């Protein structure tokens, strides 16, 4: 099922939580809504589910305007951060709940409901736990049951609100891989909310980066990581360094020296901020047209060495990453030029 969010605005008691958000989700896609807390990502998910109503704008399921449908009518599977399993019901009863509350002829017989529950338990790899109560399960198991329960109603769209947020790192990684497998096997259109960029980039087909009630960028992990389109995305996803620069005569200047980078054709002259990734740098020997700095600190971070440089008279600090055994790491002065970079208006 395709989902289209068109110019949606949501206010809570006059405070805007989402400003004019539009998003197209393709059928069968696995989408991550990524952002810091307060960015509106959970609000967007709840709007798609029908747990909230938009102040303005529409939400389409396929060609149908679902904006004014209730959550029951939308037929979505929703997985909550804290599972929201019914504590007084067994695992099998939890999973069967959505079928049991159906009316008339659409309700399967009790035996069929039990069979469906067992089938779904097999799918989430919890076979044989039908008679357990939620309190007797671990966090990871509970989240699996919650997912099985959401899938039992054969939803058009699967929505997950920080599904792994309450689990510890090890279980999280495991469930991440597992969710991807389930998605590939069942083909549900799936949207999940997370504030963990690693989770979003690793798991999703496309990532929606949100900040302050707006969508900053939508793209694949490669798009988002290699070509961030705003200072926010640069700062929020991965590591980034920035320097205040000047654009003059089509060239980029740091203080009074050109750094050997040509400004993009349409870039207006004047102040700007240069953003780049610490590992997207080209080390240079001499320095005619480069950024040069004194090594202020050098740290070993996993497979690389992260060097903090003090640049020029204005004592700007930037970080770059070097291979661990690179000779430049031993020197007191390092010269480099960013390989991939982008200019934004001055901060």
């Amino acid at each position, binding site marked *: 099922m395709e989902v289209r969010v068109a110019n949606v605005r949501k206010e809570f008691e006059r405070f805007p939580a989402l400003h004019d958000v539009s998003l197209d989700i393709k059928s069968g896609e696995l989408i991550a809504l990524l952002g810091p807390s307060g960015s509106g990502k959970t609000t967007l998910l709840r709007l798609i589910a029908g747990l909230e109503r938009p102040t303005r704008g529409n939400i389409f399921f396929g060609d149908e305007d679902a904006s004014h449908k209730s*959550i*029951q009518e939308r037929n979505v599977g*929703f997985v*909550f951060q*804290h599972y*929201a399993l*019914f504590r007084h019901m067994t695992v099998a009863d939890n999973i069967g*709940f959505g079928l049991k*509350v159906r009316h008339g002829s659409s309700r399967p017989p009790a035996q069929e409901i039990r069979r469906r529950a067992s089938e779904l338990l097999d799918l989430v790899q919890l076979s044989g736990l039908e008679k357990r109560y939620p309190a007797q399960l671990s966090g990871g198991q509970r989240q699996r049951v919650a997912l099985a329960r959401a899938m*039992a109603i054969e939803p058009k769209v699967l929505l997950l609100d920080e599904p792994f947020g309450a689990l510890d790192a090890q279980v999280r990684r495991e469930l991440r891989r597992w969710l991807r497998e389930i998605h590939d096997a069942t083909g549900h259109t799936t949207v999940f909310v997370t504030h963990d960029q690693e989770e979003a980039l690793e798991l999703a087909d496309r990532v929606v980066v949100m900040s302050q009630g707006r969508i900053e960028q939508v793209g694949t992990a490669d798009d988002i990581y290699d070509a961030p389109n705003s200072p926010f995305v640069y700062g929020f996803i991965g590591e980034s360094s920035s320097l205040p620069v000047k654009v003059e005569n089509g060239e980029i200047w740091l203080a009074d020296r050109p750094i050997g980078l040509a400004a993009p054709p349409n870039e207006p002259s004047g102040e700007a901020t240069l953003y780049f990734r610490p590992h997207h740098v080209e080390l240079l020997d001499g320095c005619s047209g480069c950024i040069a700095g004194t090594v202020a600190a050098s740290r070993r971070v996993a497979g690389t060495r992260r060097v903090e440089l003090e640049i020029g008279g204005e004592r700007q600090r930037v970080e770059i990453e070097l291979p661990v055994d690179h000779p430049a790491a031993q020197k007191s002065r390092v010269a480099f030029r960013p390989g991939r970079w982008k200019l934004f208006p001055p901060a």
Partner: protein
Amino acid sequence: MPDPEIKSYEPHHGSRSAAVTESRPARVALMAVAFAFLGIFLVLPLIIVFNEAFAKGIDAYTEALGNPDTRSAIRLTLLVAAISVPLNIVFGISAAWAIAKFEFKGKAFLTTLIDLPFSVSPVISGLVYVLLFGAQGLLGSWLKAHGIVILFAVPGIVLATVFVTFPFVARELIPLMQEQGNGDEEAALSLGANGWQTFWYVTLPNVKWGLLYGVLLCNARAMGEFGAVSVVSGHIRGLTNTMPLHVEILYNEYNAVGAFAVASLLAGLALVTLVLKTLLEMRYGAEIAATRGH
């Protein structure tokens, strides 16, 4: 950078350190005061009630309880409880649901209002009904014209009892429902359940022990209420006397055995309530809003 070898020394939480405990004589003295107090003000009166009730033997006791007026008082008390407790359950669940699950104007006001019967003297609540429904009252002439009798009759007693007891269930459920939040209900709705199914299959089971606890306290109060009921009942023997009122009448007539026999039933109710309450607290303490004691 802090040295990882240096461990910080934090006091152990959970176990009591020597600094906060008292010396042995002090502890003994404190406990003695507490037990002496309980003994004089609670246990002793209870013993006296049963002692007086059986002072003239078991036959006198059963005879006193067999008295027609006494039986009628017992019946009326059971009737009042049978009406006011279910009303309370309906009101308590509705009010708790509204306050815990919705945002609306006047919520704080409603919350305060629910506590009103606790803060006002029961006699005043009875008097309010007299002023409302009495012959000279606000609605008195209208009621008389339509032949409806409220005051000095069973309806008035029920109304006064409902008023005095209505905080019990609501106050148990509000903190419990607030703590549980809306998550389970949202999950049920997302799975296709309608409002009624959500309430019946999800909300109610989540609060059942808290509800039972509230009902227990509400019942004890409904059967034991004196002040408010006394004002509106009219004390008509065999008709509008509840057990607590009947105890007073018998006592004033120097019928000690009769008075204490009925009192022993009320005391027995209190003991049963206490035991059930303790059992509920022991077994389901976490599910009952323990923040609020009665």
